């Protein structure tokens, strides 16, 4: 490795690291007794890349997301994540302690329902500060300062900092969940239908916010959704799933404008043309 780096000159030294995928999913299979689930899924995500996974309900999208984020076990395959300062590691060969630590330091998870990802009886400030406190930050002033900064970033009024999310609208709760996840600057964020259950104007605001934050923080994102207009705005690449397998994959515009698989064509044609 060092020899090779010398040959390629100092500036090209990190090329290999740069092109190394952040997440590599190899043949991941998880099947339920009724035959549903996901089957032999492989794809990669590069640093700073936004990958969309679309498909109808029951196509295995959410199962896949649970598997690759280490929240569900898999029957077969491997998920290799390029850990900061450590290098690529199979998350299913880690101990549970290591995996939880990884999820806390380098990952974020945004659930469809804010109730699953936000503590409803803890104030907005406490919600945003939790990850930092779990990582050992023990300075109230700093925690509060950063909570305030993040409320501003996700466009929640600063004087709501001590209110509990119970008193927030659905859109605010979702924005709080985003702040709570991004406060520790994760490298990879898993999103499961982040705009599900919100009205159109609120959805648009969340998409705008996510677009800006993803660019600002250079996040890699895996976003599961059936909201095609949203992925067109957010995702660089798209995977189309049906009955547990990936049936089409490519750049977002390419897949949406020139769908090859009959199912993708059906999916795209169901959208009203603008």
């Amino acid at each position: 490795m060092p020899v090779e780096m010398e040959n390629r000159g100092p500036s090209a030294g990190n090329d290999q690291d740069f092109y190394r995928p952040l997440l590599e999913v190899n043949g991941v299979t998880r099947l339920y007794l009724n035959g549903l689930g996901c089957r032999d899924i492989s794809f990669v995500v590069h640093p700073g890349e936004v990958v969309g996974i679309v498909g109808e309900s029951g196509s295995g999208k959410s199962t896949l997301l649970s598997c690759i984020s280490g929240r569900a076990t898999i029957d077969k395959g491997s998920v290799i994540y390029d850990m900061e300062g450590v290098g690529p590691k199979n998350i299913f060969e880690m101990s549970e302690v290591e995996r939880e630590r990884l999820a806390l330091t380098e990952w974020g998870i945004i659930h469809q329902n804010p109730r699953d990802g936000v503590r409803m009886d803890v104030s907005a400030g406490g919600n945003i500060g939790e990850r930092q406190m779990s990582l050992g930050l023990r300075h109230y002033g700093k925690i509060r300062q950063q909570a305030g900064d993040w409320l501003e970033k996700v466009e929640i009024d600063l004087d709501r900092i001590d209110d509990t999310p119970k008193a927030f609208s659905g859109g605010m709760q979702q924005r709080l969940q985003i702040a709570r996840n991004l406060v520790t600057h994760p490298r990879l964020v898993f999103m499961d239908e982040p705009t599900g259950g919100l009205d159109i104007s609120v959805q648009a605001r969340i998409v705008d916010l996510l677009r800006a934050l993803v660019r600002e923080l250079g996040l890699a994102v895996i976003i599961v959704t059936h909201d095609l207009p949203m992925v067109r705005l957010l995702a660089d690449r798209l995977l189309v799933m049906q009955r547990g397998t990936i049936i089409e994959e490519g750049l977002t515009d390419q897949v949406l404008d020139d769908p090859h698989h009959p199912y993708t064509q059906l999916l795209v044609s169901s959208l009203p043309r603008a």
Partner: protein
Amino acid sequence: MTIDPIPPFVEDVGTNFAYLDPQTKRSIRRAILKAVAIPGYQVPFDSREMPMPPGWGTGGLQVTASLLTPDDTLKVIDQGTDDATNAITIRAFFSKVSGVPMTERTESATIIQTRHRIPETPLNENQILVLQVPQPEPFRRLIPSEKETRKIHALGNYGLMSVMLYENIARLGRVAIAYDYPVRVHDRYLASPSPIPTFDNPKLDNSPALAIFGAGREKRIYAIPPFTKVRSLEFDDYTFTTQSWEARCSLCGSSHTYLEQIGQGDKGSTRYVCSDTYYCKSHAHADEQR
């Protein structure tokens, strides 16, 4: 530390020494040994039905019963005093089933069973403090699921407790926990110190005496071994503080002990007295001369 052999069954007492049968004592002692080996970790044990209702200290009762030998001297306190109902009942019980000498003198006791206080008199390495614990799990009020709280302890991810302290400061300007203030034992497990006031938390840190916590209804035993680091949770800019009073004890004049406020007459006037009655009695004279 050595644990003395279990005294043999003595027929003419009419019961086993210190009530529990040898089998039970062995199982409780095993739990205690494990608890001492893993400071702050809650060890499940097969809590027995005791001739006292749960909530009266059946956990502490079982720990004490399994530790007692004929050479021991027992002190029992409730709310800092030796003659409250709970203390008297437990003392009478052990008098009857073990016959060991009872004392109010903190210095002469080898085992001290208590609920709300740690005695003001500093303990030594020949003493064991037995605490009766209603709720051993510091997270129970926040997380009802035992499965989840066990996972939190296994991972050592105690951020949520800091969130609770944060919430206290955000809402009230300070951490408003007056008793049962969570502690980190030996930099590892988060433990409930049982309902002792925050005033007593520092006494647990690096204490020469072994502290064993017994929760009968919840079926858990945990321990803080002698000379173990015990830290109350805090923030760098909001450090842990204990209660303090402007008044002095009206009986002994002490200004460094935990005081209780007592209402007087019907004019709303109050006075303060030491909660630790033995300490108060034994120092009344000394403080007068100061």
